[in-house]
């Protein structure tokens, strides 16, 4: 009866002198999982523009209906999103938009921390989504 008690004490003493495995969050960040779904970003084409062809599949598939697209055509008759709005406050990060996209324009990023004092900055447009690319190398 006494030996196990002493064994327990020895074990905890060993733990006491071992290095803590805590990741001290704000200073040190644990890398997100490989399949982590964070804030979306736009993949760029050769000219640095969005690859999005404004097909509207992401808008259709989005369960929380946070994507809004207005379609336009350029001189060569190619479709592009005149307005692409993604309301990040409504997004549930299901990743359906990424799955639905036929040209791999929208992708789920790795960013998991984003704090603002107002709602407006969370309304992402094409430029913001393109800018988000730099956080997802």
């Amino acid at each position, binding site marked *: 009866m006494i030996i196990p*008690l002493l064994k*327990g*004490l020895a*074990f*905890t*003493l060993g*733990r*006491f*002198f*071992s*290095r*803590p*495995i*805590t990741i*001290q969050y704000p200073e040190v960040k644990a890398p997100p999982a490989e399949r982590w779904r964070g804030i979306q970003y736009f993949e760029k084409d050769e000219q640095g523009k969005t690859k999005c062809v404004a097909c509207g599949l992401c808008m259709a598939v989005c369960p929380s209906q946070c994507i809004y697209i207005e379609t336009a055509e350029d001189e060569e008759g190619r479709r592009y999103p005149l307005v692409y709005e993604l309301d990040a406050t409504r997004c549930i990060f299901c990743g359906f938009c990424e799955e639905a996209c036929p040209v791999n324009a929208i992708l789920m990023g790795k960013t998991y921390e984003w704090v603002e004092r107002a709602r407006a900055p969370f309304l992402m447009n094409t430029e913001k989504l393109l800018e988000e690319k730099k956080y997802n190398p």
Partner: protein
Amino acid sequence: MQVLYLLIETIVKCGVVFACLMLSVAYLTWLERKVLGHIQIRFGPNRCGPFGLLQPFSDGIKAFFKEDLVPGRADKPVFVLAPMISIIAAISMFAVIPFGDRFTLPWTDYVVKLRIADIDIGLLYVFGVASLGEFGIVLGGWSSGNKYGLTGSLRAAAQMISYEVALGLSIVGVIILSQSLRLTEIVALQAGGFWNWNILYQPAAFVFFIICALAEINRTPFDMPESESELACGFNIEYSSMKFALFFMAEYAHMITVAAVAVTLFLGGWQAPLPQLDFIPGVFWFGAKLFVIIFFFIWQRGTFPRLRYDQIMKFGWKVLFELTLVNIFITALIVLLKG
């Protein structure tokens, strides 16, 4: 004139001891969280100042600014009195602990003895006041008009009665050896190196004393009165703000005092472990031994789970009580045979 000097000396000593005790209590909470944290391979508090050293003050300020709530069904005078009883008993126990030998004031021939009161029934006083501290817990839970509080104080009362018996019996061996209840005499008899310490002559009594002391200060494996998982905090469930802080401080002050009693009775008090080390002041040795005991209290808290209520009662009455009695008989027999 002599009386005036004595009065000033006593007041200064009271002030210093009280300040040191309160500071130790504050940093004991920090130490406990730190040690428990490292046992669980994490850091413990480390945000508030370097190594989290300002954490106790942050906690104190927080407790001070919380709302002081007295529940409607509470017995108000008793509810207010209970934390005071707890803290007063825990602090006043320290009055008889000798924490050092004596020193002469520089440039005078005035000798200051490093103990507040040197009364001849010091040990009796310690145990009397220690049981008074339990009244704070019992009354606190009972007066708050809450079933968890009431259950907690019932358990506190039952545990106090069962373990006080074994606690009292466990030190009888030491009393037989030293033939005195005066704590300074008990310490003086253990002078001259660690081979004179009572722990070598009464090892079993030391173990029983530590076990009963843990029960006495309501610490894990025996923290029945405030078992978080069943009683959601037990006796102090309705307490908030500084009243809760008083209970908290009382618990830790009680822990320091019980450790100090263990040091005094078994580990030679302020005596150095080797005669060659006598040049280091006794206060240092006292503090070092105190730290060892307190570290053990925290260490075992991080190791052992809480016992069930009936197991505690069974262990107290059917095992500890008998073992301490056997210890007394063996000690008495050996002392008698040696003549």
